């Protein structure tokens, strides 16, 4: 019994060494842009996960907001005061805390919508590519139709429709769910097309033929044999689309059809700050905008690197 953990640690070390030695890891270590953007993302993820411990204030807790501390500028300009490093907004909300809590909402919605749309897209792509025929035709025409409406419009409409269907008192509670749905319903198409193409290539390969000859059920072939082979391109597409998803969420919230002001994401914070910045309180809008840009840029750079690193043509 006492030997087991040691063995486990040993295999872990082997696994790690293998990972460290792999092409991908080597490529990563030698790409400064990838290392920097991964670090930035890790820091942002870490601060937003432990926001409750790290931040001076919980911006959702009205008891912690003081109106006499409203509209304070950042500490380095005249009139700023600790602990409000980046100043406060019109309700006395600490801008830094609001940004970190807002990043959490933005990241969660972005990741969730990528996960949902990837699941839908991969399933549709597998079915269309493997089964083919009328099903393929129907699914792909549907994808064409979705593609021929500008994404932003669909997202706004879906969001508006669901908000209209829900009674007012539930709107804020379900806002994150509505957003994930609105973003997923438009972006699954990218995955579906890509997975379909890969599936059609895989389905003609010998291992699939062999599996069919020995009568492996169709569901098992799709899920156990083809799915693992489409996951790599799907995950790369997912990373590249995460930036778009975060951007789309921010845009919807900025337009006022996304997260409500009681639960602000970065986009909501920018919208709220934008209403006031002619009165000179630039910090309320500038810092969330910078954070949002930083997140999207880091995700995009990382996705770009991953695509190039996994592209055999460039090696």
């Amino acid at each position, binding site marked *: 019994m006492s030997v087991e953990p040691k063995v486990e640690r040993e295999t872990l070390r082997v696994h790690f060494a293998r990972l460290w030695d792999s092409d991908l890891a080597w490529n990563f270590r030698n790409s400064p842009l990838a290392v920097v953007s991964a670090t930035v993302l890790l820091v942002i993820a870490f601060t937003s996960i432990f926001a409750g411990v790290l931040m001076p204030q919980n911006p959702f807790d009205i008891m912690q907001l003081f109106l006499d501390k409203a509209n304070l500028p950042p500490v380095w300009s005249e009139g700023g005061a600790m602990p409000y490093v980046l100043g406060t907004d019109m309700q006395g909300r600490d801008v830094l805390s609001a940004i970190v809590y807002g990043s959490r909402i933005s990241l969660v919605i972005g990741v969730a919508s990528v996960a949902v749309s990837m699941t839908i897209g991969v399933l549709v792509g597998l079915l269309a590519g493997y089964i083919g025929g009328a099903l393929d035709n129907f699914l792909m025409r549907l994808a064409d139709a979705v593609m021929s409406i500008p994404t932003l419009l669909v997202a706004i409409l879906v969001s*508006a429709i669901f908000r209209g269907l829900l009674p007012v008192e539930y709107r804020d509670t379900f806002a994150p769910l509505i957003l994930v749905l609105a973003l997923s319903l438009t972006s699954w198409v990218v995955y579906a097309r890509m997975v379909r193409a890969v599936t059609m290539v895989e389905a003609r390969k010998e291992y699939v033929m062999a599996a069919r000859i020995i009568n492996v059920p169709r569901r098992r072939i799709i899920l156990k044999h083809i799915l693992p082979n489409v996951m790599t391109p799907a995950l790369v597409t997912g990373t590249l689309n995460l930036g778009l998803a975060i951007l789309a969420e921010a845009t919807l919230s900025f337009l*006022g059809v996304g997260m409500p002001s009681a639960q602000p994401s970065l986009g909501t914070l920018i919208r709220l700050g*934008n209403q006031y*910045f002619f009165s000179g309180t630039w910090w309320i809008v500038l810092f969330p905008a910078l954070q949002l840009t930083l997140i999207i840029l880091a995700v*995009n750079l990382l996705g770009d690197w991953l695509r190039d690193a996994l592209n055999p043509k460039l090696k």
Partner: protein
Amino acid sequence: MLLLVLKRLANAVVVLLFVALLAFTIFKFLGDPVQLMLNPQATQEERDALTQRLGLNDPVPVQFVKFVANAVQGDFGMSYRNQLPVMGVIAERFPATFELVMVSSIAALLIGLPLGVFAAINGGSFMVRVAHIISMIGVSVPAFVIGILLILAFSIELQVLPAFGRGEVVDLGFWTTGLLTSSGRYALIMPAISLALFQISFIMRLVTSEMLEVLRTDFIRFARARGLRARAIYFRHGLRNCLMPVVTITGMLIGDLIAFALVTEIVFQWPGMGFLFVQSVQYVDIPVMAAYLMIVCCIFILINLITDLIYVVVDPRMGATAIGGSNVR
């Protein structure tokens, strides 16, 4: 060729019907038009009369057919918000959006093309990488963030450009334009830049990669061997060969841009269609929402259709794949 055109047209019609169905569904399930149009004190008789007049007692498929028939004639009903015909309200806003999108597309081409060529010619992998990073930043900064930064810098700090509105416009009867007055032109600068930045990055990246590909081909090497001057090689032989995809993709981007302009229009309070749409979403003004959706999709599909067909005319090799229904993107 004719077959291809017909097939494309049929596809476009199917997609438009799909969009119409979507617009109709919004109509049908989002709010009760009778309740929204009448005041709360209306009697039951008045309600029934309006329901009858709006054709809401007909079976749903009949309503849909009527909706499409009216839409084809440009009749989208009355706006709930101000009781004006929807088509007129949108037509009034169209020139503002159109001018914004056109000016920023032309600017994007004029800036993006030379930058892309420059990055490709000054080959060194260093320039390409710098160009790549710059375009990455251009793609990553949200349009509304650029708009806000521009307003902060040029309207609040320097106070040289107006932060909102369209300036003075000249009414030509069927069209209003801000391009003829200096205040109109000044007002256009920042919205156009913030809308164009994404396109600039996109075009620049596209031109760079296309150019690098073309410059690797044999006929360029042959042109070099003939002793042609570098400028002739790059612009007469190189750029020409990568212009086609650039132009078509820019064309397709214009469709996206008309929809995407709504974000810019909100930031700069630009009185275009997008601004109207976001307002109507907030007021649940469904006829305007539905009409905007239909019109933007029409433009979008039309542009895609035209660019697809141009592609086939210019490059016959595309015909074969285009018939298969694959999208150029």
